[in-house]
């Protein structure tokens, strides 16, 4: 045994060194990540009044269901006062909708959501806070909000070029936005492959998002829960382009 250890010392030392290095990075990352969660929890609990946490009857499923529906309708009425298009995300109905003045203009069925039980058992105060009307504070997308094409006006008839409509389709959309209630949402459009079958790659997408998030946030200072939603690409693009910058979003669960 000793002979083997001596014979392959260089290799074993390398493996041990790499292991210890990765382990320490992971431990530091874990501690920082947990501290970030703790800070986020404390911050959240500060905005939820103590008396709101224990609401009468909230632990009775029928009452809770009705209170959630009432909450959703009250938010709809508030949003209807605005002249802007806004986004409604009903997680228990698996629906994302665009509404204006109380009229639902488009309703898209989610292909998948992750986590599957995103905030579905919050206490009353936390639920109230989660479903408060939130505003988009930051967003990025793989396609432009407005597909503007700049064209120089011809100086005379000879300069007029025949109008050519751009027929190259946009790539499937990935729309990420952060809300002022510190929730991140990632909406991914699922397009059709060459056989006209939905090209849904849930695991690949998840690894890509988490990897890109890790790159920017290896040792996180803040924690924002992220909701991932997959929609039909056509619906996802329509919804993205309908919602104005800094648009309003409301959740139901």
């Amino acid at each position, binding site marked *: 045994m000793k002979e083997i250890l001596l014979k392959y010392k260089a290799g074993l030392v*390398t493996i041990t060194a790499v292991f210890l290095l990765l382990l320490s990075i992971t431990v530091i990352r874990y501690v920082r990540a947990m501290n970030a969660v703790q800070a986020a929890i404390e911050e959240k609990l500060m905005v939820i009044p103590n008396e709101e946490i224990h609401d009468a009857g909230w632990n009775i499923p029928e009452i809770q269901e009705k209170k959630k*529906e009432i909450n959703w309708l009250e938010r709809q*009425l508030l949003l209807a006062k605005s002249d802007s298009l806004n986004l409604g995300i009903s997680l228990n109905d698996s629906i994302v909708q665009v509404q204006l003045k109380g*009229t639902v203009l488009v309703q898209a069925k989610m292909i998948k959501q992750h986590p599957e039980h995103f905030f579905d058992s919050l206490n009353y105060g936390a639920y109230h806070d989660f479903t408060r009307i939130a505003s988009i504070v930051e967003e990025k997308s793989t396609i432009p909000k407005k597909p503007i094409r700049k064209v120089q006006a011809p100086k005379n008839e000879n300069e007029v070029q025949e109008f050519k409509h751009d027929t190259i389709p946009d790539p499937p959309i990935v729309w990420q936005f952060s809300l002022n209630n510190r929730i991140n949402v990632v909406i991914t459009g699922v397009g059709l492959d060459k056989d006209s079958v939905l090209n849904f790659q849930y695991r690949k997408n998840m690894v890509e998002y988490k990897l890109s998030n890790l790159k920017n946030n290896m040792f996180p200072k803040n924690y924002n*829960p992220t909701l991932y939603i997959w929609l039909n690409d056509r619906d996802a693009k329509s919804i993205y*382009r309908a919602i104005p910058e800094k648009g309003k979003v409301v959740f139901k669960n």
Partner: protein
Amino acid sequence: MAKVKKYIIWSLFPIVLGLVFLMFAYINVMVIPEIQFTKYQKVLSIKAISDTTINVGAELKKLDKTLNLLSKRVDRLTPGDAFLVINTTNNTFELYKNNKIIRQGLCSTGSFIHLEVDSTKSFMFETPKGVMTVKGKKTNPVWTKPDWAFIEEGLPVPPMGHASRIEPNVLGDYALTLGDGYMIHGTLYQRLIGSPVTHGCVRMLDDDLEAVYKTLPVGAKIFIY
């Protein structure tokens, strides 16, 4: 034989290193975020203290009443009569009557071309999003060409009211005016319907336009998103 054994053992090292790296990558990329979310959700999910004084039946009755009232208020927000919804991304429309889709199909909306004349003047060909109302209805509409129609053809812009601005038979059989120069009308270029090619108006196929014209009264709402 000893050489082969040594070679095999040495080749195992990079494999083990790779596996160690993958394991830590998985923990960092997938496991830690999941633990974070679980902890966050768990703390905010503390169950409410069971309230023994509550009369469930009476509470449910009260909630039902509120729910009914709110549902009615929300339902009243959607126009009860006819209205039109236009999707400017997919260039489609849905015509509603009594809260049911009675017709849907393709249309054409703004091209998003930004026509630059000079440093001070430009035109943006975009269909505005939001809610509009039908301001007026016309049969056999005549197009009064605005300035951009001449500019994009490289022609000099004639004065307002000039005869060259009047162009009949290009807007189809019907038009619904929406204000600010925007209209829903027909087109000679029917094969382009479904593409974003207009200067801001909404173009429809002849049959669809006729249905929309006959269904929507003046004052009907047009939702554009």
